[in-house]
């Protein structure tokens, strides 16, 4: 075999082989552990949940919990987003007024918020049935936390028709909400279980539903156990999702390499034929 052919063959195989790396990573390595990337973003993926915790330079998605519907596992439907932009501890904004450091072991993400007079840990732990978000400090603190979703059709049985203004709901440790996903033509259910009785729970209406649940509490520790599920109502088609990219990359690689080889093989002959005809 000529050197040129051998090199071409090697390079074609090299490109195609590498294109499978995302798929191999997704299948063999990425499941059920915290992975850091970018400028300090962390994510956790298991069969049921996809959890994103943004880097320290962004106050949103702290964390952002997605549910993976069993009928469309790659769809990643937003379930609930904790926001540091709009959350306060002892009247200090979690995003703007604390220094943040993040550390992860395979199971738990530990985010430490530090101010001169206090240190608070936010632990995020994902299991197959729920995502636990715990705020903990050595001293008691007062907190106002905001959890977002665009939008929730009902919260603890209250629909938008019953609450046209922000509404403090009866005190409880369990908040249940429903939502619809038009893309998947499905109905979603979410549940937040708090480890202690909060001081206040408010729900915030926004156009077609509620977009916020705010919780105020005073404690040295509070755990929010978030779970959710999706139920197909119609006949949902498999939608495109970012999570499908690992499957697409090999197809792209094979297509481009095949085009290159075809042009290499037939391109010159076609060009010569065209040149002969025109002359």
């Amino acid at each position, binding site marked *: 075999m000529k*050197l*040129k052919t051998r*090199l*071409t063959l090697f*390079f074609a195989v*090299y*490109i195609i082989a*590498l*294109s499978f*790396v*995302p798929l191999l*990573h*997704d299948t063999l*390595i*990425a499941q059920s552990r915290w*992975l*850091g*990337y*970018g*400028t*300090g*973003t962390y*994510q956790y993926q298991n069969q049921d949940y996809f959890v994103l915790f943004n*880097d*320290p*330079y*962004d106050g949103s998605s702290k964390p952002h919990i997605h549910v993976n519907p069993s009928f469309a596992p790659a769809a990643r439907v937003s379930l609930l987003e904790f926001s540091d932009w709009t959350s306060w501890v002892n009247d200090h904004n979690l995003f703007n007024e604390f*220094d*943040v*450091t*993040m*550390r*992860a072991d395979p199971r738990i993400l530990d985010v430490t918020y530090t101010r001169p007079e206090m240190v608070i840990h936010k632990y995020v732990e994902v299991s197959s049935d729920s995502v636990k978000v715990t705020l903990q400090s050595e001293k008691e603190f007062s907190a106002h936390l905001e959890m977002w979703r665009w939008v929730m059709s009902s919260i603890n049985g209250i629909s938008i028709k019953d609450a046209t203004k922000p509404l403090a709901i009866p005190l409880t440790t369990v908040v249940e909400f429903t939502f619809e996903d038009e893309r998947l033509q499905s109905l979603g259910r979410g549940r937040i279980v708090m480890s202690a009785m909060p001081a206040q729970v408010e729900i915030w209406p926004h156009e077609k539903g509620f977009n916020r649940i705010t919780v105020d509490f005073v404690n040295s520790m509070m755990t929010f156990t978030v779970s959710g599920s999706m139920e197909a109502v119609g006949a949902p088609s498999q939608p*495109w*999702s*970012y999570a*499908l*990219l*690992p499957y*697409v*990359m090999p197809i*792209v*690689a094979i*297509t*481009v*390499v095949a085009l*290159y080889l075809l042009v*290499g093989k037939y391109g010159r002959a076609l060009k010569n034929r065209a040149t002969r005809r025109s002359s």
Partner: protein
Amino acid sequence: MEERSRIVLLAAAVRVAIAPFFMHAGDVGTIYESSIMALKGLNIYDFVSAKTLQMQNATGLPVFFEGYAYHPLLIYFFAPFYWVFTLIAGQGPVMIDGHYPALPVLIYPWTPLLLLMLKIPIILADVLVVYVLAGMDARKAKIYAFCPYVIFVGAVWGMFDAFVGLFLLASYLTSSRSKFLSGLFYGLSLMKLYTAVLLPLYAVRLYGRWKELAQFLGGLAITLLPVAYYLVVSPKSIWNVLVTFQGGRLMGGVNLYNFIWIVQDLIFDLVVSMVPTILLIVALFYLITRFGRKAPLLESILAIMFVYFLFGKVINEQFLVSIFPLILLSRECDHKIWVAPFIFIFLRSPFYYFMLPILWTSPVFYGYYLQADEVWRQLQAAGYLQIPMYAVGIAFSLLIFWNLLQLVDATRGGTASIPRVTESTGFQQKTTVPDQFRPEFQNGSGRDELVNRLMVALSPDGR
């Protein structure tokens, strides 16, 4: 007016007309910030290194602050122009922040003037390349002068790979007459560090000709003095910024490796990023030992750089500018490969991002920016942009591969050039040049005037 002057003036005019109104905020911001620090006598590497340590501490990940990670000499090409700017506009801030993901605050009316001043050195480098090329082949000079890709990278983006292109071209052109100058220009081409892969080639070609090797290294050493200075005054910082950062970068860019951007696992990505590095070392070793001494210098330089483009971890969209003048000089290469990185620019960064200096002049435009950016981010989040980026990356790698094969083929078949080997040294003096000016180039009568003057002025033996 003679054609050469016309091309040069037109090339300069196009660039000057565009330069004040466009920029890549992150990259121009880095130069602006570093120019300020250089004029204040502050240590740029300490700043970047401290930011990196801060990020690593905050995230618990081996992430790096993407600031000034270049040869120390680079900033002294920009700082004088920034100094001139301050004489006109004063010392007040003009561009506040702008490091990704933040958007800069721009102060008017000074922003356009600042952009023009910071881009003048880049435009000068571009124009000098045009001038040198026009002395050899007006057609090729025109291609470089009016290539949309080259204009975009320098005058719109504000990226300075044109320096690398100019100095690499100068190193090649002076190599037959003055090894000292060749070494000096090669050293200057290291401003963006990636031309470091050429050092073994120069060394192998000069091996056994100790005087010439010493001259080459002498020229190179002069350019490395600032590095030596920083290695003495702040060794940890410069090591962290130049070696650890550059060595520990994630693979990606306009190449076949950008699939890694969808693998969101930094530790894994860094391990996989070692694969092309291993192949790069193997390929460089093979090429240099096999063809390093016998192939013409132009083809050798291009082959090594192509191998770097294939197996280098990071190939950014603008890197091709650095070898574009040499590609134009080679008969074997197809210069139209610029199309791939040019397309890639607009897949990676939305076109309106380069228009911030225009869009930031009015709250209405700013509103349009936010609306457009919303759509762009949705496309990104859905993964729609990653697919064409990967396709273009592979296509560019394959085009580079094709050009490399052409070079290897021509070199093995002896058609790459007509090297003239000196009797005493066996070192090839001339390499491939287009037929139409080969005779003048070889006998020296048509040699580019600028290069000639430079060589006479700077050559240690006065030739």
